[in-house]
């Protein structure tokens, strides 16, 4: 976000008097956003301070009970802890899988490179519901994974049933999000000068050392921004944890959904949503700060 704004050129027409043209041009979009994004968010914030009574419904009062409950109650603790531990696991696995894959892709020759780049990116365009369904069929009770494990004699076929487990949710989320990590690292690799790698090799470093000491430091920004996207999206993921985790493994997004559409406790659902939003914004903002400081340091 900041990258784009900072790269914009200062304007050509620099008049001291206020020019109404940019205001008029951006007014339709700005009004639309303030009315249809600002109002709903403010309303949700207000709703989260209301209380809820099972016989009356929503009581418009002002209190912090919902936040107390979300932040204190062990039930919600467990949900948020689960949400973020799943997200961290997904990020780590996406780094372990996505970074080498992006590197391998960048060293391929065409046409293989374009072909596999499309193969990697294509799943992004296919609905998350479809991709998650694939995992249900693979790791479900009678799935292929169980049959495979049984056939090669590692374990009984029931070991392949990962439905309603952390492993299953993490596996499917990695599948959904790893292309984003590959793209991010791929973009960073495009700026890499292969001559530096050759220099490392000719000076006697092994491939492993060159990758660790030459390539990794240069693509670190790509890895970090990929991690940020993957983390934010897995912390707020709904479809995959809802289908594979089910009721047994609630995460923040599915908990908010249940409060809204099953329990009908809207104020509580709103409080969960606000906590999720604030956590997300804090993570993204602190990341941006960190990157800005890094940039300033490297630029002197």
């Amino acid at each position, binding site marked *: *976000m900041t990258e784009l704004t900072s790269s914009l050129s200062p304007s050509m027409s620099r008049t001291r008097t206020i020019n109404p043209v*940019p205001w008029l041009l951006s007014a339709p979009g700005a009004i639309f956003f303030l009315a249809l994004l600002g109002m*709903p968010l403010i309303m949700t914030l207000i709703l989260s301070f209301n209380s809820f009574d099972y016989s009356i419904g929503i009581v418009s009062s002002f209190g912090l009970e919902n936040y107390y409950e979300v932040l204190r109650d062990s039930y919600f603790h467990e949900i948020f802890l689960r949400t973020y531990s799943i997200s961290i696991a997904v990020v780590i696995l996406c780094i372990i899988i996505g970074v080498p*894959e992006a590197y391998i892709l960048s060293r391929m020759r065409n046409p293989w490179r374009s072909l596999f780049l499309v193969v990697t990116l294509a799943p992004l*365009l*296919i609905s998350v519901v479809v991709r*998650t*369904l694939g995992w249900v069929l693979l790791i479900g009770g009678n799935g292929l994974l169980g049959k495979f494990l049984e056939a090669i004699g590692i374990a009984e076929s029931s070991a392949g049933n990962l439905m309603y487990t952390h492993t299953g949710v993490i596996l499917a989320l990695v599948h959904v999000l790893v292309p984003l990590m590959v793209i991010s690292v791929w973009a960073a690799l495009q700026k890499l000068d292969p001559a530096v790698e050759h220099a490392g090799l000719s000076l006697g470093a092994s491939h492993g050392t060159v990758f660790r000491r030459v390539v990794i430091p240069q693509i670190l920004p790509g890895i970090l921004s990929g991690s940020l996207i993957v983390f934010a999206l897995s912390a707020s993921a709904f479809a995959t944890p809802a289908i594979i985790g089910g009721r047994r493994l609630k995460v923040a997004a599915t908990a908010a959904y249940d409060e809204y559409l099953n329990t009908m406790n809207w104020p509580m659902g709103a409080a969960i949503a606000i906590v999720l939003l604030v956590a997300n914004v804090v993570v993204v903002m602190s990341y941006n700060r960190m990157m800005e400081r890094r940039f300033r340091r490297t630029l002197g």
Partner: protein
Amino acid sequence: MLHNSKLALTFHSLFVVFLLAPLVVVMLVAFTPNGYISYPTNGFSLRWFVAIFEYPAFIRAFWNSLYLGVAAASISALLAVPAALAIVRYSFRGRDALVGLFLSPLMIPHVVLGVAFLSFFSQIGIYGSFWALIAAHVIIVMPYTMRLVMASVFGMDRSAEKAALSLGASQWTMFRRITIPMILPGVAGGWILAFTTSFDELSMTIFVASPSTTTLPVQMYNHIAHTVDPLIASVSTVLIVLTVLFMVLLDRLYGIDKVLIGKG
């Protein structure tokens, strides 16, 4: 030229298998002749594709998603073009805040947006209408349109505009005949990205869609939450095939890596 080692190629093959296995499995199950989830080991059958037509809910949801995607992408483009021109070409107080506002939906979890729209729409009494759904989708696709349109306005050579003006064209003629054609690739790329985002959106839509405005992802999710059968596999297969066709078309017209890497 650096080469990939055997180990690297093995890793790559496993990665491709990991990425494609779930999709291949869905497509295999869709062809089963049996009445339950199974691989077509005893012959291929198209019965589950025929069955889709016996469930008008899926057909209706498909058309809803299509109309919704087209409407949301088009409205977002109409709002994004003038806003991008203002943001890129003028410096004015509040410009950064405006960029932040238009890109903010990227930072807000879709579930939170869903919760917010549900309360808002029911409060003002338009919950369940198709227009409410379109408005919600315009908000979530706007960042994608905005980024691509801003990039194309930023990268545009303005000498052609100056030439048009000096030759006596009016501002409007210049906009229509010079500016629009020159930023069209960016606008089209943004539109496509917006359309696909809208078409696949589930986490927000599930809060806002009513039974009469159900979209395809919501319909599929509700079906899976209830039961997993070969029907949902055949619907998914149709969707995969349509997506691949769309992608081939996109690649021919535009270069798919350009559109998708713009998304990251």
